[in-house]
């Protein structure tokens, strides 16, 4: 591969497969901030997010041969990041059982939300709520994908999301 900094995604993948440091760095640079943000939102801690990002990218480089191009490279890396992050926080996660779910009222958010407070409120959510909320509402995953990723039922994913939103609303009211 030419020693060039003008790399396409194909060249990056090929470069990573042959352990080319330029390609590895190019791949890292392309996704680092988005994946760090995702790690931070799932882990809720900067230090832990750094650890997750490092572990996940090692898995990406080592597992590049298993990337078949069935999804985009970004989506593939994202799954690795989510799994790595979730493994780190799994012990702390407690899911509320589905039978307790009681959707009484709609959650109303008011006219507009302050992004700064919203970020703070998301980070203040308990681990399980925050993970499901981040994956579904921020990252755009469907409940069935979240269920598969986190090894929970779709029902649990749905109930956690509802609880997360309710909790979020309560916290945001505090800032109003």
């Amino acid at each position: 591969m030419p020693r060039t900094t003008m790399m396409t995604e194909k060249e990056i993948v090929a470069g990573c497969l042959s352990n080319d440091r330029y390609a590895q760095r190019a791949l890292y640079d392309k996704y680092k901030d988005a994946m760090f943000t995702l790690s931070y939102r799932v882990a809720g801690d900067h230090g832990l997010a750094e650890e997750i990002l490092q572990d996940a990218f090692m898995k990406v480089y080592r597992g590049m041969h298993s990337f078949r191009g069935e999804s985009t490279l970004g989506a593939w890396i994202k799954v690795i990041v989510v799994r790595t992050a979730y493994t780190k926080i799994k012990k702390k996660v407690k899911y509320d059982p589905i039978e307790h779910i009681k959707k009484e009222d709609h959650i109303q958010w008011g006219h507009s939300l302050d992004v700064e407070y919203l970020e703070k409120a998301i980070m203040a959510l308990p681990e399980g709520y925050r993970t499901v909320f981040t994956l579904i509402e921020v990252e755009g995953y469907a409940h069935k994908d979240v269920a598969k990723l986190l090894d929970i039922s779709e029902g649990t994913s749905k109930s956690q999301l509802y609880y997360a939103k309710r909790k979020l609303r309560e916290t945001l009211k505090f800032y109003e």
Partner: protein
Amino acid sequence: MIKQFLFIVFLFGLASANAQTTLQVVSKSTNKEFTFQKGQTVVVEGEKAEIKVETWDQPQVVVSIILFAKNPDRSVAENELKSFNFTFEEESDRILIRNYYAGSAKAKSELTAQYFVKVPTDCPVQMSNYFGKTDVENLSANLDVNSQFGPINMYNIEGDIGIVSRFGDIFGELLNGNVKIESHRSNVTLKGLQGKYDIKSKYGLIKVFADNRLIDLNIEAEKADVYLFNPEPTESGYELISHFGEITLPEELKINFVENNDTKRHAVYTPGQQQIPGVYVKITYGDIVVRKNPKP
């Protein structure tokens, strides 16, 4: 003799105290041309970069980049310049141009980048820049700029404009379209308003200079002062709300205060048949000042 010797030593000392540091400047530059396809956006991601985007009537995107490394020791600059790189990526929906430093340790040299990008007039542009200046002019397409610690200057843009700035001042003249600005600890100056403006600001000074009338302007700010300079203050409609601040108006603008006390001042004014005020300013911990200024 001893005196003479001491004087010479003193002169040497003086000379070395005033000695200037000379930086060895090593740079690498490249030019790249792309044929612009409809549906593509030019994405520029700069770091410590000075980015200038201009338009022309050709269907090509032309990029010139210069990367600089500056250090008193030329070999250090040369070495660090090797890790300071640019990339180009062309995909069906975007042309990405960016620079990055890939050295394993913090660079000892001053590393800076300069971009000069020429795009077709109808080419959407998206830029992010950290620690550098961003300039755009004469664009008739959507523009998004996200900047931190660097000023943004925009001139004559027609399209949807989205600006996010943190610790960097925003200057815009002749912006026409849906203009959305989010500024944090940045001053905002706008001249020759033509479109619809939504500004959200926290900590900063907002100055708006209208050429004619202020028609569609929404400002929500916190800990910021807002100045509206209007050649015909009585021809615009206003709803002005200031919590814990003052509202100052020109003499001819006889405005009705719905509420006027130390914690909240709320004034509404609609000229003639106009039902809804075009200017809405809501501010917490800051002043609102409307001034009559001569037509440019």
